[in-house]
């Protein structure tokens, strides 16, 4: 039975629950917007990285360079799109 639950997976799962709990503090505790959003950014991105490395085995094959380049490129372009759009449609008018 034990061999079916490798430490890597279990630790990853526990971490993801902990990160969820930390993120929940923004709901249950009273804090400023900046503080809250910082917590959310940190927990969400760590959580994503966790899945990528612990569960998705992104770095295990010979194509790991291509895979990481692809993911980083995607994230970079997605962030540019999100913040560029906000800059153009919302913040640009303030």
């Amino acid at each position, binding site marked *: 039975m034990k061999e079916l639950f490798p430490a890597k997976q279990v630790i990853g799962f526990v971490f993801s629950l902990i990160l969820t709990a930390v993120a929940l503090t923004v709901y249950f505790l009273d804090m400023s917007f900046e503080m809250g959003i910082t917590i959310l950014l940190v927990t969400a991105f760590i959580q994503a990285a966790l899945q990528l490395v612990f569960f998705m085995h992104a770095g295990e094959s010979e*194509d790991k360079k291509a895979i990481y380049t692809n993911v980083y*490129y995607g994230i*970079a*372009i997605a962030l*540019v*799109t999100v913040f560029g*759009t906000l800059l*153009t*449609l919302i913040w640009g*008018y303030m």
Partner: protein
Amino acid sequence: MEFFERFAIPHPSPLIYASMVAIGLTLIAIVIGITYFNKWGYLWREWLTTVDHKRIGIMYMISALLMLFRGGADAVMMRLQTAVPDNAFLDAQHYNEVFTTHGVVMIFFMAMAFVIGLMNFVVPLQIGARDVAFPRLNAISFWLYFAGAMLFNISFVIGGSPDAGWTNYFPLAGTDFSESVGVNYYMWSLQISGIGTLMTGINFIVTILKMRAPGMKLMKMPMFTWSALITNVIIVFAFPVLTIALLMGTFDRQFGTHFFASTNGGMDMLWANLFWVWGHPEVYILILPAFGIYSEIIATFSQRNLYGYKSMVGSMVIISFLSFLVWVHHFFTMGHGALVNGIFSITTMAIAVPTGIKIFNWLLTMWKGKIRFTVPMLYSLGFIPLFTIGGVTGVMLAIASADYQYHNTMFLVAHFHNVIIPGVVFAMLAGLTYWWPKMFGFMLNERIGKWGFWFLSIGFVFAFFPMYITGLDGQARRMYTYSEATGFGPLNMLSFFGAGLMAIAFALIVYNVYYSFRHSPRNVGMDPWNARSLEWATQNPVPEYNFAVTPVVNSSEAFWDSKKNGHQLFKDKITKIHMPNNSGMPIILAGFFFIFGFSFVFSIWIGVIVSALGILGTMAYRSFENDHGRYISEEEIKETEKEYGGAK
């Protein structure tokens, strides 16, 4: 009868009725012709079910040429309408439909298809592969593109064409101002062909990363393959944006949501924003493969290796990233502040730098070269000055404050035709001529080809340069007519004259295909151009397995090395070759997509549900299918190679 009323054309005219009859007769003629010559079996086995990248590439290019004539007819109609002031050839509504379909057809169904068709044909050959990474998916891509193209093209005879411009800005494209189903057609045809394009992007990235011949490191790939890699990276990250924008547009039109409405918290500018987040990278999706083609051709016909290989690659990598950072320059006049316009103005000017580097590299490749003035080289030589003019006017448009003067005028129209025609169209014609013997085993006639080039180039200059002047004088784009007092008349007449010359050029190009098919000698050998890269190291036309023996490579000009420096390309013996099986599944899947799109356009929900089940059922069938491909035996390969005139 009520059910059928929705299919009526909202703004009929004799021209459209004539087209209906013409389309009907052509279809009947095709069906009768194929039946008469008993070609249905051949067509199904050899073409409709093929997964061969070469045949898929050729089908892409045939479709692209058909679309070129569809879009070209639209272009001539527009130039005819505006040739004289107060012309009544087309009314405002028809003019709107014509410029909309012209833009959509040319960008999505002509240029994209041509680019992808050439990539399909050339890339696996240049890297010494047997096929692409996912041959079946490749066929699905093509048929989805084809289904999308056909869906778009039936719009003008069933239900009405889209009429809100190829940019389809809301709220104009919303149901308040575009009541017919035209814009629904826009949404669904682009959605369906866009899915196909995305799959192509994934397919080619994996092909190029994983299927290169032994010894071909990334920095030893031919330049066209490099440009294809970067193009496909941009496709993969840009097309999902269009998918979402089209989905939201569909919801707004057909489910009454308020994404792009100006009431209830919607934001009409969001469409323009998302459209150009996709749209600007799209420009580079079209132009980078063109750069790749020019790089191959200029090196071949200057008989020198490409100058500045590393800077060529570097500038394309930079472009791939910068192309996602400039989109706001398409709507500088929307009203955001100086900061936003300033940022995007600077990124726009920055992207001109890597492009400029490439121009200098081509010039330096020709420097001291022994230039041969063949048709592909003529197109490349025409491209450099004409494209540079287009680039310079682009930098003029990038100056945000000055853009208030240029925006939405004929100046802009002149600019983007000035980059797209010498950039993309010239490259496609050059590439087609250059790789033609690889596809069909004979050359296109040079003399007719040169006539075509001169008609096209001179026609282009006459058609578009006057627009720079009328644009600066204030002629707005997309206006169906103007009064005599504006003084735009003579220059527009000149433009029409240019369009006529371009039409003659395309007629010459088609005649050239016919003429060469009849008269060109068939024994052109493997290397009619004295070329440099790997695709010329196999027979013409290319056998289905591409290379009898997988080549071994040690530079970006492996074939040149094998000719001049004694590099041995083929070291192994001929052994049996594994190939994928043909499949009817892609065309059936695309058929379901077509019905899905058509039903959705008219909100026929029963058709939507049935075809959606068909799509999912086809995919489920594919999931359970066991298909391990087939082998071509050693004897069969030797037999084929012998027919070509002996094994190498």
